[in-house]
């Protein structure tokens, strides 16, 4: 069973969390960005086979939205941080968007 280490609550089974999808993209600024920017943000995915930045919310714990870096080919979670603190997990290199 996939396990995620919540930075606040500790390691828990993924069933305590709600998946929130791709976190590798920057959300357009509120009120800015046209149809195209929002379309790309919402509908186009890199869908990486490998490290994947993604949102999880610890709904049965601290209710914090987290950003995890999980390898989709192995399900190994390399890193987790509170989404609001996740600047340190920004993708570097080719994965950056």
């Amino acid at each position, binding site marked *: 069973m996939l396990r995620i280490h919540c930075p606040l609550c500790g390691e*828990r089974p993924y069933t305590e969390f709600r998946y929130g999808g791709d976190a590798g993209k920057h959300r357009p600024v509120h009120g800015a960005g046209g149809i195209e920017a929002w379309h790309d943000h919402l509908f186009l995915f890199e869908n990486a086979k490998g490290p994947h930045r993604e949102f999880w919310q610890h709904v*049965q714990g601290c209710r914090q939205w987290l950003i995890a870096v999980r390898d989709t080919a192995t399900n190994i979670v390399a890193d987790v941080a509170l989404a609001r603190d996740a600047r340190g997990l920004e993708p570097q290199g080719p994965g950056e968007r």
Partner: protein
Amino acid sequence: MLERRSALESSGPPTGRREARPLVIGEVRGFALLQAGAFVGTVAALERAVRSALGVDLPKRMDAPRRANGVCAFKTGPEQFLLVGPEDARSASTEHAGLESSSSPVPLFAEDTRLCKVGPEQVRPAGAQGSWMDALREAVPSAMGSLTPLSHGRTRLFLEGTPAREVLSTGIAMDLHPEVFRCDGYALTGLEDTPVLLHRTGSQRYELYVLRTYAGWIWEWLTDAAQPFGYDVVEKTHVSLLAEADGRI
């Protein structure tokens, strides 16, 4: 005063009692619960405010609560805390007064109208009786953080006895080994897809704060799990948090 009713009044009767009953299950009543949250950057101010109002230090980590003066503080988020204390003095004192005490509201104007909002013409009295919650309300202005009463939104259950840990481990995916989940430790976790705050209040005693609307179902689920061990139900135990902390932890 209207009668308070437990969320468990609609849950099924306990089943399968046996002679040897190593387990006691019950509901803890008569407490109040307030969620306090700071905004990013105001945590220190909130900590000071809580300390000055209640004498409690807010915990820095989500592993064990801090307590003082009958108030127990759990950290439940990066800047969020759950404060458990005695029931509001006003409510407690009137609980036995019965329905005949219903009367017109006293038209007092409060110092702090932030929480005790009013209709166009009326204002709710606030802080009149000096309960710990009112003290906190006065100490925490709205720019510092939020205060959300949740006394009715959580049902507090307890299990005590040798099989308590095993009963919990049928539904809670956490390591409850006594060396790992130590006395007075707590965790926010899931019990069968519902969120709970699990607090180990004794070597073989656990408390669960569960969402009120799920409480009946969880009660039935837990007593079902406890059936093979045999259990007794203790209802509406009024347990002072301090006494419990002193006596058991």
